[in-house]
C-alpha cells in the first residue's frame, strides 16, 4: 500500500499479502485505527535487507521527533475543535489520525533514499498532490471538484442521520453510496494506474528472470568453452573442435530453442539428422564438417538408411582423407534424396581397393542397394573424394520439400 508492510508481514508469517492488506483496510474503515496501526508497523518493522527500522533511524534525530510530536498535537487539536463545533464524527478519529499523521512524518524523515524515492513517486501518483501535466490538468481539476462535492454532501448526510428523522435507513444508504462514488471519482484513476503499474512491474520481473536464465546458460556453455579453449591453445585441432561444437550448440539454442547440453537425438527429419551427423563427426574426428541441406522431409526407413550411409561416408572422409574439412550436401527433391560427401584430401583409386576392405563395400553400398538406392564414388589419388548417394522417395516419405 505504500510502505510494503503487508508484503513484509506476509513474508514473515506466510500469510497472503492481500489478506493482510484487506484486514488493514477493514480496520481503517472501521475506526481509523488501522491507519495508525499500519503506520506504526511501517515504522517498527525493518525493511527486507536492511538492519534498522525506519522508526529507529527517525528517532535518532531529535528534530524529527519534535516535528512529529508537533504534528500529532496540531492535528489532534484541529480534529478536537472540529468535533466540538458539531462535526461529532471526528471525535473517534482524533487519536488514530493524529498518531498516523505523526507516524508518517517519522516515516518520511527516517526513510532512506530509495524508500523516499518510492514514496514521492507514490505521492506523485495521487491526483490531489501530484503535478499533472498540462494535457490532463483540466480533467484532473474537474474530477477533484466533482468528487470533492460528492464526498462533502455524503458526509453531511451521514452527520444528519444522527438526528432522529424519517427514512433514516434510506438516507444512510444514499449517503454511503454518494461517499463511495465520490472516492471512486477522486481516486479511481490512481488505483487504475497502480494496477497497471503492477502489471508492468510483473512483466519487468519476467524479463529479468529471462535475462538471468540467459546469463546462466551463456556462463555454463560459452564461458566454459572459452576457458577450455585457452587451456588447449597449443592444440589447433582441439581449439577448432571446441569452437565448432560450441557454435553449433549456441545456434541450436538461439534459433531452434533447444537448450544447450540437451542435444535432441530424437531426430525425425532429414535436416535434423544432418545436424546430428555434422556434430558427431566433428566431435569425434576433429574435422570441420560443412553441411548444407536443401529442402526437408520426414525420415522413412529408406531415408534413415541413406543417412546412415551418409554418416559412414562422412566418417570415412574425416578419418582417411587427411583434409581439414568435409563438405556434406543433402538435397531433398520430390522424387529422390541425394547426399554428397566431399573432401579435398589425398583420395584413392576406387578400383584398387581390394575386396578385403569391407568398410565402404559393406556399410555403404550394401546398405544403399538393400533399400533401392545407388552409390557413386569418385576419387583419384591427390584429387580428393566424393561419395554420391541417391535414394528414391517412396510415397510415404513425400512430405514438404
Amino acid at each position: 500500500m505504500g510502505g510494503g508492510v503487508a508484503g513484509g508481514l506476509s513474508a514473515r508469517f506466510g500469510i497472503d499479502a492481500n489478506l493482510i492488506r484487506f484486514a488493514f483496510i477493514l480496520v481503517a474503515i472501521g475506526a481509523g485505527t488501522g491507519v495508525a496501526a499500519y503506520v506504526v508497523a511501517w515504522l517498527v518493522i525493518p525493511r527486507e535487507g536492511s538492519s534498522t527500522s525506519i522508526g529507529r533511524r527517525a528517532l535518532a534525530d531529535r528534530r524529527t521527533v519534535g516535528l512529529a510530536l508537533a504534528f500529532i498535537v496540531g492535528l489532534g487539536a484541529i480534529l478536537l475543535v472540529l468535533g466540538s463545533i458539531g462535526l461529532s464524527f471526528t471525535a473517534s478519529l482524533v487519536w488514530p489520525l493524529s498518531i498516523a499523521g505523526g507516524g508518517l512524518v517519522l516515516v518520511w524523515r527516517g526513510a532512506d533514499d530509495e524508500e523516499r524515492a518510492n514514496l514521492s513517486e507514490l505521492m506523485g501518483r495521487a491526483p490531489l498532490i501530484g503535478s499533472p501535466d498540462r494535457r490532463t490538468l483540466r480533467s484532473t481539476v474537474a474530477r477533484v471538484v466533482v468528487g470533492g462535492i460528492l464526498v462533502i454532501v455524503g458526509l453531511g448526510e451521514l452527520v444528519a442521520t444522527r438526528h432522529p428523522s424519517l427514512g433514516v435507513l434510506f438516507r444512510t444508504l444514499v449517503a454511503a453510496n454518494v461517499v463511495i462514488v465520490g472516492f471512486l471519482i477522486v481516486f479511481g484513476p490512481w488505483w487504475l494506474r497502480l494496477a497497471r503499474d503492477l502489471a508492468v512491474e510483473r512483466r519487468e520481473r519476467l524479463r529479468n528472470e529471462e535475462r538471468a536464465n540467459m546469463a546462466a546458460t551463456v556462463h555454463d556453455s560459452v564461458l566454459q568453452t572459452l576457458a577450455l579453449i585457452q587451456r588447449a591453445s597449443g592444440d589447433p585441432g582441439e581449439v577448432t573442435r571446441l569452437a565448432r561444437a560450441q557454435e553449433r550448440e549456441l545456434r541450436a539454442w538461439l534459433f531452434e530453442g533447444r537448450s544447450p547440453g540437451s542435444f535432441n537425438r530424437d531426430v525425425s527429419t532429414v535436416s535434423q539428422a544432418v545436424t546430428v551427423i555434422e556434430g558427431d563427426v566433428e566431435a569425434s574426428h576433429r574435422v570441420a564438417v560443412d553441411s548444407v541441406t536443401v529442402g526437408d522431409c520426414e525420415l522413412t526407413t529408406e531415408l534413415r538408411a541413406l543417412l546412415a550411409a551418409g554418416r559412414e561416408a562422412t566418417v570415412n572422409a574425416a578419418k582417411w582423407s587427411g583434409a581439414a574439412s568435409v563438405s556434406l550436401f543433402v538435397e531433398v527433391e520430390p522424387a529422390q534424396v541425394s547426399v554428397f560427401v566431399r573432401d579435398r584430401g589425398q583420395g584413392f583409386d576406387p578400383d584398387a581397393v581390394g575386396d578385403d576392405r569391407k568398410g565402404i563395400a559393406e556399410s555403404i553400398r550394401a546398405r544403399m542397394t538393400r533399400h533401392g538406392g545407388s552409390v557413386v564414388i569418385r576419387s583419384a589419388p591427390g584429387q580428393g573424394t566424393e561419395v554420391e548417394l541417391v535414394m528414391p522417395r517412396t510415397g510415404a516419405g513425400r512430405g514438404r520439400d
Partner: protein
Amino acid sequence: MDVTRNTGEDRPAKVRVFLVDDHHLFLSGVRAELGDAVEVVGDADEVAAAIELIGERLPDVVLVDVHMPDGGGRAVIEAVGRTHPEIRFLALSVSDAAEDVIGVIRAGARGYVTKTISGAELTAAVGRVADGDAVFSPRLAGFVLDAFAADPGAAGGAVPSFDPELDQLTPREREVLRLIARGYAYKEVGRELSISVKTVESHVSAVLRKLQLSSRHQLTRWASERRLL
C-alpha cells in the same frame, strides 16, 4: 598474391577495400588476414560513420558485417548503393540464418561469406567481387536452391509468377549451384561441367541478379519460415 583489378591502365592497381564491423577484434583480424594483397583504405565500426567514410574514400569493395546496431550491413549497403552504385559489397557474418543472408543479398551485396572463412579464401572472394562477380558460399547456394525450389506449387498453392525470367533458375544455373553447395570451387565446377570459370561466374552472377530482383514473394516468406525449422 596480389589481388588486382583491371583499371584499363598499364599497371593494374591493388583493390581498395573498406571494412565495416562493430567488433574491433574482428576488424584487426581481417586487416591482418588480407595483409598486403589488397589496400585497406579505412574502417568504421558503426553504420553512420561507415556511410560517410565510404563516400569520402570511394573504395572498390566494402567488407561489411551483417549484424550491427542501427540497421546493420543492410543499412550501409542501401545508403551507399543509392549514391555510389559502383561500389561493391561483400557481406561477412557469423550468422547462417537464411533471413540475414537473403536480406543482405537483396539489399545489394554481391556475395556472402561466413566469418570462419580462411584468409586466402577471403582474399579471393574480395578479388572476385571487385571484378563484378558474385561470391556464393556453399550455404548461400543451398539457400538459393531451397528458395527457388523446382516445384513451388508443392509447398502449398502455386503462386503466379510475374516474371518467369527472374523467378526461376535455368537447369544450368541449378547445376552450378548444386556443385557449389557440394563444396566445389568455381574452377572445379567449370571442370565438372566442361565450361570455363568465366562461364561459371556469369551463371552465378545471373543467379545473384535473380535473387536481388525477383519479385517472387516466396523468397521472403521462405527466408522467414526457414528460421522456424
